[in-house]
């Protein structure tokens, strides 16, 4: 049997671990640049604060209802996620880290009662060790485990653990699940299914497999079989190495000049190269792009993008020079750019570097030494301690994060303080 363990309102829960007084209070977390709401506590949901709502539209409501607002603090969430996942890994034999706040687990217990107590134990262990509340859905397939998890969250009387085991219970729950809520069913598939008279998960489970396959490809068919309890989607223990690495963000304010844009680009590239080196890979092509804000109808619009190719490398200064020089001719003075980014392509494992005749091995060694020193310094004294000079002009593009909580677990100067007074 499989289980899907999912952290409840994860970002909010992370904030509450270090601000226990916010328990039972309405809390929301905002997206990058404090744009819209990406996480809500149950109390905020009950107040009718919609997910994804742009903050400027509901500012009055938030103030009136005394909602506690946080900018997103990804270093904190990443660390807390790792703690939760490690606790899973220490407790059950196989774990697939599915997202920052969800994991599929393979349970060893043989019967429902044992599974139930295994998951209850796990749930209280994660809560005690990390402070994060989780819900667990148990079922024979991933798709059903998702449904079971959803049920566990919506029905507090389950105590956070729910098994979608016997057929009777399964049909009842699937009948109460809208077809769009299913894992892998997108908005457009949902519309198409509804047109064919399929509105609940139960309808889809009972649909004709060959018809589904014809209309919705093999992916749709998998969903149907999974709903019937036949596992089609395996547990992935080691996620495959990424084939592309993207680093792109909206600026804190619109940018009209080249220098700050080049600086933002260099900073995003620095993050991408960091990821590249961590997965021990080299890149030999990159796409560099920038565009204006499409939603500002009155602004003149411009989008530029350029694809660059070169021999495999992970050397940041060279990549930065290429990216900045590559995009420069496409930049238009006076446009109000909102976003820029880089996409590293054609990744190969570092071990497969094929030396060119004209590659200077000594040069490559030196480049590697420079990158290693930079990484060591930044690991020890914090990100961006040692940086390319062109990435330092941060004023205009830096993210707006006016309400960010401290780096409780990631920054020595910001760890929690306990009063002994």
């Amino acid at each position: 049997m499989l289980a899907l363990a999912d952290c409840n309102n994860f970002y909010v829960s992370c904030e509450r671990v270090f601000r226990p007084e916010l328990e039972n209070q309405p809390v929301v977390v905002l997206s990058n640049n404090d744009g819209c709401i990406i996480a809500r506590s149950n109390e905020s949901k009950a107040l009718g604060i919609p997910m994804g709502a742009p903050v400027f539209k509901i500012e009055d409501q938030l103030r009136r209802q005394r909602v506690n607002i946080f900018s997103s603090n990804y270093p904190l969430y990443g660390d807390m996620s790792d703690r939760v996942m490690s606790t899973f890994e220490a407790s059950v034999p196989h774990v697939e880290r599915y997202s920052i706040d969800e994991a599929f687990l393979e349970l060893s217990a043989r019967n429902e009662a044992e599974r139930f107590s295994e998951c209850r134990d796990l749930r209280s262990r994660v809560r005690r060790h990390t402070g994060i509340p989780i819900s667990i859905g148990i079922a024979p397939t991933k798709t059903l485990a998702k449904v079971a998890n959803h049920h566990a969250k919506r029905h507090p009387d389950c105590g956070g653990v729910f098994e979608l085991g016997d057929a009777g219970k399964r049909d009842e729950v699937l009948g109460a699940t809208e077809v769009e809520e299913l894992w892998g069913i997108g908005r457009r598939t949902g519309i198409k299914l509804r047109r064919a008279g399929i509105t609940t998960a139960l309808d889809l489970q009972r649909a004709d497999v060959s018809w589904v396959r014809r209309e919705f490809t093999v992916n749709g068919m998998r969903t149907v079989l999974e709903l019937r309890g036949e596992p089609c989607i395996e547990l992935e223990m080691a996620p495959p190495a990424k084939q592309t690495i993207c680093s792109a963000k909206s600026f804190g304010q619109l940018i009209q000049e080249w220098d700050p844009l080049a600086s933002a680009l260099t900073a995003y590239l620095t993050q991408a190269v960091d990821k590249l080196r961590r997965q021990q890979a080299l890149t030999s092509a990159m796409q560099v792009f920038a565009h204006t804000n499409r939603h500002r109808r009155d602004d003149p619009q411009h989008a530029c993008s350029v694809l660059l190719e070169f021999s495999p490398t992970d050397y940041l200064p060279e990549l930065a020079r290429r990216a900045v020089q590559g995009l420069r001719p496409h930049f238009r003075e006076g446009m109000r750019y909102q976003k820029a980014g880089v996409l590293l392509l054609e990744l190969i494992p570092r071990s497969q570097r094929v030396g060119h005749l004209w590659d200077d091995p000594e040069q490559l060694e030196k480049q590697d030494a420079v990158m290693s020193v930079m990484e060591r310094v930044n690991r020890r004294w914090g990100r961006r301690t040692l940086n390319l000079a062109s990435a330092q002009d941060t004023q205009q593009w830096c993210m707006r994060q006016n309400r960010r909580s401290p780096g409780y677990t990631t920054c020595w100067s910001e760890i929690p303080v306990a009063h002994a007074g």
Partner: protein
Amino acid sequence: MLKSIPKKLKTDGSISAIYGMEESGSLELPLFSARVAAGFPSPAEDHLESRLDLNQHLIRNPSSTFFVRAAGESMMEAGIYDRDLLIVDRSIEKRNRRVVIATLNGEFTVKRLVQDEEGIFLVAENPEFDNIPIRVDSDFSIWGVVTYVIHEV
């Protein structure tokens, strides 16, 4: 320097042993470089072991361990001084007489947890400070157990 709770090293003037310490968590293992060594192989080569790692000694459960800064002087006799760094393990059983991080009315506090026939108390380790009785209606919970204090001498 390190002190464990209860204070062991503090009263005693003698030092029983000194170990070389690894100061950071990321161990740099001596790997062989790509160039072929021309001289004699090192006689220590077959005996390479990683240097002592302080993390290993101080942190039993990395995923449940947090660092907390102490502020104030109410725990001085437990070896905790103002600005000391506390290592806090949330997974450890919150037993009677442990030094704990508790949350009281929304604030983190470090005290000794004492439960006796008169009730539950957060006890200060400094005669100048009062003990705090925990009432049924107190907004109180135990956040974690303090396992070590790191104090700069």
